[in-house]
């Protein structure tokens, strides 16, 4: 029994190892090509750079210049950090409010939030862009407000599910002790919400950081985020500077991989929690 188990274990490990290498290889191929001259990339993408094809970091310097990568990175960071912060703060408050105050209006509101989760972006793409223009929300500050609105469906839903599981007696006790609702929310409820707040934050970071269409339509031509900068590398008639493209793909992947390795535990737990609730 023991022996066959060990054999099976080794076999499973081997299969998984081969698959893992296959899984990671696309990223390694991009990394490898980012050090090749741009005319050699399409011909031999699977070969290591050699003395003829190696181009040092010139793809990186030209790519950064062409895409204005530093400012795109700053823009992505700014929008992601503030949007996610605002989403977590305001949707947790709203979810607590509509779960604790049971009125017909609040119930209806909850169902509209849930409903919004299944509506594809294309349904509101044009009208939302126009609304944002009319209300002068077509700037990096305005888009944070848009993200709060568009992201509130999932976030309110997740927070509400969690609030329902918190015994109401805790809050009653706090309020009898003299706290007003705001104090009891920020001092007592919010700390209890921490696990689900992390989930909500993770899911929204993954969405906002990688989002292309919404920022492109609302603020794209003036303020580029990383996905927009990469898409704009593709010039007219489909011509692409492959060298710059490879370097920018690497630079786009690096921050998200670092983020992933730093909070891997939370990300995987958050994804499971978000999925099971959803």
């Amino acid at each position: 029994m023991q022996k066959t188990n060990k054999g099976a274990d080794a076999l499973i490990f081997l299969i998984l190892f081969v698959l893992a290498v296959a899984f990671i290889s696309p990223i390694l191929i991009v990394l490898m090509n980012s050090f090749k001259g741009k005319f050699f990339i399409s011909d031999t993408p699977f070969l290591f750079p050699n003395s003829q094809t190696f181009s040092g970091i010139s793809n990186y310097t030209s790519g950064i210049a062409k895409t204005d990568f530093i400012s795109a990175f700053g823009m992505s960071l700014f929008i992601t950090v503030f949007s996610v912060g605002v989403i977590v703060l305001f949707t947790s408050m709203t979810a607590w409010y509509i779960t604790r105050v049971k009125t017909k209006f609040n119930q209806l509101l909850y169902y509209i939030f849930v409903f919004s989760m299944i509506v594809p972006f294309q349904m509101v793409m044009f009208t939302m862009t126009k609304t944002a223009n009319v209300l002068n929300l077509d700037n990096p500050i305005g888009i944070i407000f848009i993200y709060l609105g568009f992201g509130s469906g999932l976030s309110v839903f997740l927070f509400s599910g969690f609030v329902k599981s918190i015994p109401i007696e805790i809050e009653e006790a706090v309020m009898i002790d003299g706290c007003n609702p705001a104090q009891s929310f920020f001092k007592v409820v919010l700390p209890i919400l921490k696990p689900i707040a992390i989930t909500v934050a993770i899911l929204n970071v993954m969405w906002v950081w990688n989002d292309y269409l919404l920022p492109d339509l609302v603020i794209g031509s003036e303020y580029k985020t990383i996905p927009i900068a990469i898409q704009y590398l593709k010039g007219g008639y489909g011509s692409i500077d492959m060298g710059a493209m490879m370097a920018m793909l690497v630079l786009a992947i690096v921050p998200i991989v670092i983020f992933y390795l730093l909070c891997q535990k939370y990300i995987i737990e958050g994804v499971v929690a978000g999925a099971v609730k959803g």
Partner: protein
Amino acid sequence: MQKSIKKYFALFALPTIIAFSVAFVIPFLLGVYLSFTEFTTVNDAKWVGLSNYVKAFSNQDFLNALWFTVKFTLVSVLTINVFAFSLAMLLTRGKRGTNLFRTVFFMPNLIGGIVLGYIWQLIINGVLYNFDLTLTSDPKYGFWGLVVLMNWQLIGYMMIIYVAGIQNVPKDVIEVAKIDGASKFQVLRNVTLPLVMPSITICLFLSLSNSFKLFDQNLALTAGAPAKQTAMLALDIYNTFYGKTGWEGVGQAKAVVFFVLVAMIALVQLLITRRKEVES
């Protein structure tokens, strides 16, 4: 307590409600209305009844995109879930390196759709180059390219959910089944699968709606080429809005049809698989 909280409506609920109305509720209602009108800006809308819908359904690009999207969704949902479930079974049986493997398989999911599209463009073109072909020589390359890309992106995500489901299956139930003489296949079919049905529901739902709504990856990988034959619904709607002046109303009608399809698929799928879930 309800009463005292209620007074705090302006602080707790109002900011989200205003943002939600501006970003979703108003654009949604306006969108439904505009789909029955002809317009170039929101202010010059002229009621035209169902004619946008008629135009949408007699538009060859739209019908192509619809068919392409359905085919793509069927193939990717099937492949993603079969691979993800198999990987999850392997991961929950093996002992060494489990965490490392999970980390690796999940990683592509964090990379954005635009970046994913260009990564696979390089790789697929690199392979096809040997046969003097490119991704855009034939729509079938774009189709299978999108399938591979989507598998790469979503297998890890679905695997994580399946792993959680499989780990929740009580060990003693499986032991009992084995003692009763059930074969490995019978255990999988009659014990494990019914008990992980909630995970299957979620994974089918997520892979289905993600595949059906795909946009960024489609735009970056082929942008619909050749001749719009690999454009999916989301991309076709985008092109109608921003590529054809005077067609905004038709674009909006296509978007409403798209929304109705997504909503129907979501509802039907949840109803069917929820019915199959059992309590352990």
